[in-house]
């Protein structure tokens, strides 16, 4: 199988790329929702993410990628004490997937051959400490959505079925994509995504041409193309790693906290999740920019990403919520 299209080679779509990088720096921001037209590079970006992210250390053979032997769940019966490096997991959750495959179920193989009641981990286990990608998240069946909401909130997958009683850690960054013309996303799920991005096909002819050219080079001149862009990806990966370290030392002035709170009050965003996410995103952004203190500029640059999808929707208002965020931003933070 071919290596995925490199992340840095994606033309334009700055917002989408920025949002994904921010979650890579601080996974607790809580996921990205990408809404927009078809053929704008949504799936390409997510599939490229896997090779961009720094590898993680995990216990050998642990089904939930635990960092320490002590964290391995009892049911897995992991004997290995040593850890090894694995790429950050990016797991696809296909539409119409059954509940069994998401949460895990009785291991038929073991049951049939050994007569043992064992647990076969599902997608949630594999996605632990990594990314869970749902294409067409707005078309996902309700009962799977409910399940994901529950797990995303608690960070733990609890399976009580077929006589099994199993729990394991399931902390992942949720990445969803979809086309709003085909259906809206349920507000509860919307709220779980830390950042949201609207993507559109580039309207600039030159940009479109560049997209096609790079795609063509990727297909036909694969080796040279990958060599050229993997270097860029590596540079970006280093930046993410150093930003993760810088994040702990970053200072947050009280004034910024006040700004963030005012912004959320003015926008009428429900709950406090908006504030927290905005703050985390701004901090990650400052770390990415290699700045030592958080400023208004950082908040301004990520405010739309973090707040756009948290506004009360007015069906009779034609202007998108992006414009509303920009307007309030100007009022609160000045031009």
């Amino acid at each position: 199988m071919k290596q995925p299209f490199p992340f840095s080679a994606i033309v334009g779509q700055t917002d989408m790329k920025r949002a994904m990088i921010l979650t890579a720096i601080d996974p607790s921001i809580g996921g990205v929702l990408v809404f927009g037209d078809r053929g704008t590079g949504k799936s390409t970006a997510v599939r490229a993410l896997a090779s961009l992210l720094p590898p993680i250390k995990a216990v050998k053979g642990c089904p939930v990628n635990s960092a320490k032997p002590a964290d391995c769940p009892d049911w897995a019966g992991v004997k290995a004490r040593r850890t090894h490096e694995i790429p950050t997991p990016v797991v696809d959750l296909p539409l119409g997937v059954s509940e069994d495959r998401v949460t895990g179920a009785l291991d038929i193989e073991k049951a049939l051959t050994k007569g043992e009641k064992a647990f076969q981990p599902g997608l949630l286990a594999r996605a632990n400490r990594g990314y869970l990608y749902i294409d067409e998240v707005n078309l996902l069946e309700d009962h799977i959505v409910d399940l994901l909401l529950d797990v995303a909130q608690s960070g733990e997958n609890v399976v009580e079925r077929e006589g099994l009683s199993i729990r394991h850690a399931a902390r992942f960054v949720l990445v969803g994509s979809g086309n709003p013309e085909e259906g809206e996303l349920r507000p509860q799920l919307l709220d779980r995504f830390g950042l949201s991005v609207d993507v559109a096909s580039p309207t600039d002819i030159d940009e479109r041409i560049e997209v096609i050219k790079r795609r063509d080079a990727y297909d036909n001149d694969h080796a040279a193309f990958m060599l050229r862009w993997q270097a860029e990806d590596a540079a970006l990966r280093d930046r993410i790693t150093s930003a993760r370290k810088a994040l702990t030392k970053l200072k947050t002035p009280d004034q910024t906290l006040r700004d963030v709170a005012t912004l959320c009050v003015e926008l009428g965003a429900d709950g406090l999740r908006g504030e927290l996410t905005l703050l985390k995103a701004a901090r990650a952004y400052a770390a990415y920019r290699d700045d030592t203190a958080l400023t208004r500029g950082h908040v301004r640059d990520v405010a739309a990403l973090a707040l756009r999808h948290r506004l009360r929707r007015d069906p009779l208002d034609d202007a998108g919520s992006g414009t509303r965020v920009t307007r309030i931003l100007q009022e609160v933070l000045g031009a």
Partner: protein
Amino acid sequence: MTDAWDRAMTALALLAIDPMLGGIHLRARAGPARQAFVDAAASLPHPALRLHPAMSPEQIDGGVDLTATLQHGALTQTRGLLDRAPSILTLAMAERVEPYLAARLGASLDAQDGHILIAMDEGLEDETVPESLSDRLAFQLHLDGLAMGDIGKILLAPKQSLTKRISAPDDSIELLVDVAVRLGIRSLRAVGFALRAAKAHAALNDRNAVTEEDIHTAIALVLAPRATQLPTEDTQDTPPPDIPEDQASQTPESLPDMPDEMLLDAVQAVLPTDMLDKLQTGQNIRTGSGAGAGARKIGNRRGRPLPARNTRTTRSDARVDLMATLRAALPWQTIRKQARPDHKGAHIRPSDLRHKRYQNLSDRLLIFTVDASGSAAIARLGEAKGAVELLLGQAYARRDHVALVAFRGTEAELLLPPTRSLVQTKRRLASLPGGGATPLAAGLEAAQELADVCARKGLTPVVVLLTDGRANIARDGTADRAQAASDAQAVARALRGSGTQSIVIDTGNRPTSGLRDLADALGGSYLALPRADAQQLSRAVDAQLAS
């Protein structure tokens, strides 16, 4: 000369050369033309596989082969269909494809596993393959209306297979991008496919570089069927491309200038005949398949699956959940074998039986049937529009879909097909015509038709009729007041007979008894709301539905 057939054969040949083109979205009913095409596809050197739209994840991805495992007493795994060597996958009845299969096929095409997908779409007017899939297939073909005589020669599979060495001049890319913009194609995948198709076509003709003819074919095969607007001479939204003059002269291996008109003629020749109808509604027909979170399956055995239970059921149609039954029985096999060593095969007791259970939450469809006649029409339509949007705004929580039928003059028209998308609704409702007589019967008939179709899809339709009730056009289109009223009564009774719930909202200044009678005939509730506004309407409908 049978263009459609030739195009179909060319598409197949190009796919054989470059499987990365994904495949073909074939829109055709079963018939000789389609059969001939399928035969032609079978002559390609790839192994053929048939898929049907409701394949289970076990079949697609592979899993434990239960029958074989139980028979041999050793674990037997089946291989997933998509894990096989590159094949031609023929998906019959592709318009009914289950979301899981669509998603898996899409991922497989993205990964460029080398599979070629032929999606055979037999959908009626507004049913089609989910866009997530059709966008990943290079070609779209319409074979309907081809007679036996139109079916030409079947091409033999070409021998060339490499597209690597084909060079494409820079301005050919620019040209393709430009044409795509003019045809209103937003997806960039389409342009990528067009470029690939052009290169494959060059390889087919033993050329080393893409020429004008290749570009032509690529536009006709890949871009034209995706057009959402008639090609414009000057694009307003985008800066006019300055490609042909400036850069063409600089690059040494450039295309000869292709006159724009010629190019656009090529496009127009290929545009589907119903293109204009689609354009009039402002949008290409969208797939409805999206909205169907679990609402697609028919019958009382659908909905959200619940864990299987060992319920003692007397219902003959209850389905045994084989997997769950075996799971329940498996842990006991060792013990039971010791108890009855003479018994061969799996030891399954009645207490192991598990039955499938489903929780059935059917989605509701509100069909607004709005009287667009006369002078008050504009205001009324405006309010109905507002109410539709308001109801949609809260639709998700209540699982409602909304549709809008307007009637005026002599006929009724479906303005908004069932949807849950605010974005699409706003676009569709942007302009609504009004004025003319009141064909109440026609309006109700249209509502009933829609209700029937949607009920078959598993939705629960509710008809909301907004009118002042002065029906004056009979079903046959004549202006006969008495006939019109009795026709309306007749349709209303039929609607009631089909078990559709309904609400009649009288928007006349002086409520008439005629509408109350109509509501009785419909078996629905009657509300007099003179000069109702959008908020009131939405509240009234809400209250009626809740009661």
